[in-house]
């Protein structure tokens, strides 16, 4: 019975992510357009984009087509697996199937998919794109890992449902480490969801083609879907980790509250994305490195109980 509920919950989560991700992207594009004083695409535009991409011819080019296929499937698969592990308004369906370490590794694998894609393509532009992505990942993934570990240290357990419940704030007094981690994560959130000012590697189709240069048609649709879903997944993680208040309410209200929080976060991401310019890679690395320093301080404070 438990297994059945878990499977149904997992499927429900996956379905919600698949339906809501393009809507969040559409909202983002529309609000960006309004900030730029223009009309902008219709709200359902990303659905049209994905459907159109599915209908195009699939040209297999690049150095290693089988690796390209693998990278495309892996990208979407990892993101949908993450969806099963997250509490989205109700407790995570597969919450007991993994712990914090699995979450961190899955997040890293979704970044590695881009690297595989760029390597499989093998063109100069994609190699340059993935070198930037590698540099970004090295300094960026530790931030999220440290946030989760701070939560784990406070609650003395690595289980997902205890950690992803606002555990960063700890129990007693002023939650120094929690507040510091909240600041750090807010500053670097844009980079996790690959939006301006930090979309250096992937969405950089304006400057260079980037790692996705050799993809066309359906595989590109998979990658774009994965990118859109990452926005929702990371917002859900952020909400679960840092703003989980009200998640234990009754089913409709808690669920709605969760989605309101997620869309508020998407709105914040949009506002920041519409008013900033893209950072250079060295500026971004310096920024993240300083944030890693600050978050290590937070980890030390957490291990002392603050």
């Amino acid at each position: 019975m438990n297994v059945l509920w878990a499977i149904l919950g997992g499927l429900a989560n996956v379905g919600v992510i698949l339906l809501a991700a393009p809507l969040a992207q559409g909202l983002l594009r529309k609000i960006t357009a309004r900030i730029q004083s223009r009309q902008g695409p219709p709200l359902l535009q990303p659905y049209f984009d994905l459907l159109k991409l599915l209908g195009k011819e699939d040209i297999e080019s690049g150095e290693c087509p089988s690796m390209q296929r693998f990278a495309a499937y892996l990208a979407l698969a990892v993101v949908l697996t993450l969806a099963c592990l997250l509490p989205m308004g109700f407790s995570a369906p597969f919450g007991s199937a993994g712990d914090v370490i699995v979450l961190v590794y899955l997040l890293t694998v979704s970044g590695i998919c881009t690297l595989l894609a760029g390597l499989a393509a093998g063109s100069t532009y994609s190699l340059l794109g993935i070198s930037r992505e590698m540099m970004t990942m090295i300094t960026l993934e530790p931030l999220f890992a440290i946030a989760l570990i701070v939560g784990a240290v406070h609650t003395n357990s690595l289980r997902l449902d205890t950690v992803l419940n606002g555990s960063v704030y700890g129990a007693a007094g002023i939650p120094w480490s929690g507040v510091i981690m909240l600041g750090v994560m807010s500053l670097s959130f844009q980079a996790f969801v690959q939006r301006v000012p930090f979309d250096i590697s992937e969405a950089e189709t304006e400057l260079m083609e980037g790692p996705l240069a050799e993809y066309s048609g359906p595989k590109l649709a998979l990658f774009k879907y994965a990118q859109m879903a990452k926005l929702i997944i990371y917002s859900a993680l952020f909400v679960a980790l840092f703003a989980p208040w009200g998640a234990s309410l009754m089913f409709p209200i808690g669920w709605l509250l969760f989605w309101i929080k997620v869309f508020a976060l998407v709105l914040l991401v949009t506002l920041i994305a519409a008013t900033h310019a893209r950072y250079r890679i060295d500026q971004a690395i310096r920024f993240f490195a300083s944030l890693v320093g600050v978050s290590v301080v937070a980890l030390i404070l957490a291990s002392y109980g603050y």
Partner: protein
Amino acid sequence: MSLLSKLEETMLCLKAGRVTLPYPARPALAPEQFRGRPIFDASKCIGCAGCANNCPAREILVFDVCQEIRILKYLGRRCTYCGRCAEVCPEKAITMSRDFETATNHNGDLGQRLELFMSTCQRCGRCFKPASALEELKMKGYRFDDLQNERWIFRAQARLEGDPVVDDIAIELD
């Protein structure tokens, strides 16, 4: 990178509202002196082929079927809408309209073809010798260079008593 300046920027942009022109829904009119597609008016055309000689893209082709029939064909593909044909036409048969909505899926749609009847000279048929290039270079009219100060003076209109020289080379267009 302060937060306040970004908020101010957002507020400014939002205050501008939505500036997009609803173009295909509402027709847009080009400004007054806009040079759009040239329209050849066959009732005024005398078939002198001045436009064809002047076109920088060699876009207007002339073909004489016989002495009385001359075909002028404007291809429209390479036309840069410079307006030289309209400027040179002695009968003002070419007007640069304000039409810019000329997108098409077939190149031949842009062409205009005129088949004209040319009158013949009663005595000898059609005899007409245009000025040679050297003749065109000749400056016609009165000349009054400044002999004392040894300077050239160009005038577009011939005038014996002219205005005093303003500069070294005074080029005046009428």
